[in-house]
C-alpha cells in the first residue's frame, strides 16, 4: 500500500498582490480525498480571492498550487476545470436565459464531445452522445430535486433552487474538488439544514473533496471536518471545528477585543 496519503489539493505559501496591496499572503493548506473543509474569516479576509487563485481566475503572485500531485503553474481557467476543480459563486452566476437542464448540460461540454459536423448530419454518434449528456444531466437534477424544473429558465427558479442548480452544474464537469462560495447565503434555517444534507450527500455520492466558504457557523461546524481561518489575507488558525471554536485568536478576530 501507499506509505503516505496524497492530498487532492496542496497549497504552499500562496500570495497575491493587487497593485501595492497584498490581498492574501503566505497561505498554505492541504485537502485530502473526500474531505469537507471550511474556509472562514471576517468579510474581506480574502476567502473568495483564494478561490479565484485556485481556479486561476487570478494569477497568484507567489507560492504554488498542486492539484492531484501536479503543479498547476501556468494553467488557465479552462485547464483547471478540465483538471477537476469546479466552483459555485457567492453571487449566483447561472446562465439565466438557459433552461435548468441546459445549465447542467454546459458542464458536460468538455466531457462528452462530438464533432460539429456529426451534429449537423445528426449521426448516430451525435445522438448517442447527446442522450448520454441528457441522462447524466437529468440524474444530477434528480439528486438536487430539480428534475421537475428541467425545462424552466434558470432565472425563474426560487433562490434556494438556484443555489442547488449551481452545485449541480459544477458537478456536471466531473470535479475531484468542489469549491462552494457561501452556499447558504440568503437561505433560511430549514433550507440551510437541507443544504447540509446535500453537501454531505454530494461528498458521499460523488466521492469528491469539498472546500467551502461560509459565514453560517452552524453549517460550518456541522459538516466541516477541518477548518482554516483567514484574517486580513493571512492564515490565523487551522484545525477541527472544536479546536477552532476554542481558539482565542479566532474568537478575537470575530468578536473583537
Amino acid at each position: 500500500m501507499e506509505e503516505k496519503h496524497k492530498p487532492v489539493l496542496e497549497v504552499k505559501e500562496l500570495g497575491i498582490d493587487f497593485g501595492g496591496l497584498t490581498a492574501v499572503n503566505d497561505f498554505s493548506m492541504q485537502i485530502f480525498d473526500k474531505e469537507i473543509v471550511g474556509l472562514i474569516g471576517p468579510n474581506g479576509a480574502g476567502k473568495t480571492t483564494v478561490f479565484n487563485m485556485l481556479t486561476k481566475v487570478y494569477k497568484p503572485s507567489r507560492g504554488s498550487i498542486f492539484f492531484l500531485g501536479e503543479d498547476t503553474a501556468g494553467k488557465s481557467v479552462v485547464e483547471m476545470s478540465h483538471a477537476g476543480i469546479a466552483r459555485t459563486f457567492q453571487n449566483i452566476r447561472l446562465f439565466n436565459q438557459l433552461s435548468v437542464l441546459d445549465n447542467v448540460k454546459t458542464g458536460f461540454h468538455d466531457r462528452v464531445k462530438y464533432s460539429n459536423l456529426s451534429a449537423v448530419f445528426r449521426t448516430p454518434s451525435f445522438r448517442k452522445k447527446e442522450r448520454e449528456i441528457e441522462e447524466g444531466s437529468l440524474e444530477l437534477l434528480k439528486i438536487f430535486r430539480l428534475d421537475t424544473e428541467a425545462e424552466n429558465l434558470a432565472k425563474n427558479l426560487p433562490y434556494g433552487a438556484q443555489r442547488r442548480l449551481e452545485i449541480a452544474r459544477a458537478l456536471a464537469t466531473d470535479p475531484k474538488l468542489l469549491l462552494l462560495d457561501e452556499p447558504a447565503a440568503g437561505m433560511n434555517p430549514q433550507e440551510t439544514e437541507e443544504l447540509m444534507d446535500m453537501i454531505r450527500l454530494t461528498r458521499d455520492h460523488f466521492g469528491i473533496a469539498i472546500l467551502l466558504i461560509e459565514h453560517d457557523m452552524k453549517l460550518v461546524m456541522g459538516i466541516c471536518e477541518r477548518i482554516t481561518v483567514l484574517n486580513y489575507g493571512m492564515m490565523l488558525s487551522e484545525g477541527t471545528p472544536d479546536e477552532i471554536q476554542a481558539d482565542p485568536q479566532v474568537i478575537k478576530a470575530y468578536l473583537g477585543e
Partner: protein
Amino acid sequence: MDFLSYFINGLGLGSVYAIIALGYTMVYGIAKMLNFAHGDVIMVGAYVAFFAVNSFHLPLIPSTLLSVLICAILGVVVEGLAYRPLRSASSLSVLITAIGVSYFLQNAAQLLWSSAPKVFPSVFPSGGIALGDSTVSYLTIITIAVCVLVMACLTAFINKTSTGRAMRACSEDKGAAALMGINVNRIISITFAIGSGLAAVAAILLSATYPSISPTLGAMPGIKAFTAAVFGGIGSIPGAFLGGLLLGVIEIFAKAYLSTQLSDAIVFAVLIVVLLIKPSGLLGKVRREKV
C-alpha cells in the same frame, strides 16, 4: 397582384439582409463586438464564387461550398489576428480595429482583383412564376427558401447541440462558462466561422441579383444588414431574421409606392422610429446596467 409580388420581392431582398444580419448578431451576442468588417467578408465571398465559376468552371453548389469554406477561414483568421489580442480592451478599440480590417480587406481586394467591376455569371435558373401581370423570379424564391433553411438549421444548432449551448452560455457569462470548462476562445472562433460562412451564402445570392461585383460591394448590404440586426434587436437570432425580412419588405414597398431615390432614407427613418419606441429593437432583451 402587384402588391403580392412586391411583398415577395421584399422578402427575397430581406432574406439576404437576414442572412448577413445573423453574422452581425451572433458575433455581437457572443463576442460583444460590432464586426464592421462583416460586409467585406461578403465581398470576398462574391469574388471567390466568381473565380470558382468563371476560372475553375465549378458548378453552383461546389462553388458555394468553396466560398463558404474560404470565408469561414477568413473570419477565424481575422478574429484570431485582429480581435483576439483586444479581448480585454475597450469596445471602442475593437470597433476601430474592425473598421481598419474593413478597409484592409477592401484595399487588398482592389490590389488583387482591381477596382473595375466584374460581371458575376448567371448561375441560377432564369425565369420565374407569373403572378397576375408580374412575375416572381426563381432566384427570389430560392433566396427565401435558403434563408428559411439557414434559419432553421442555425436555430437547431444553437438549441440542440453542445457547441450551441456553449455559445449561449458564453453570450451570458464568459467567466462562468470558462469555469465550466468551456474554451471561450474556441467558441468565439466557431461563431466567426459560422457568421462568415453565412456571409458567403449571402454573397452568392446577392451577386446573382445584382451581378456587378467590385471591392466595395459589401459596404451597403453590410450597413443595411447591420441596421436589420439592430432593428430586430442585436444579439437575438430570431430578431435578425425578423429585422432582415421587415427591412427588405419596407425597402421594396418604399421603392414601389413612395420614391426610388428616397427608399434608403425611408428605411433608416423607420429604424429611428422603432428605436425611439423600443430602444432594444423588436425582439431585443432589455438589459439593465448593473450599478
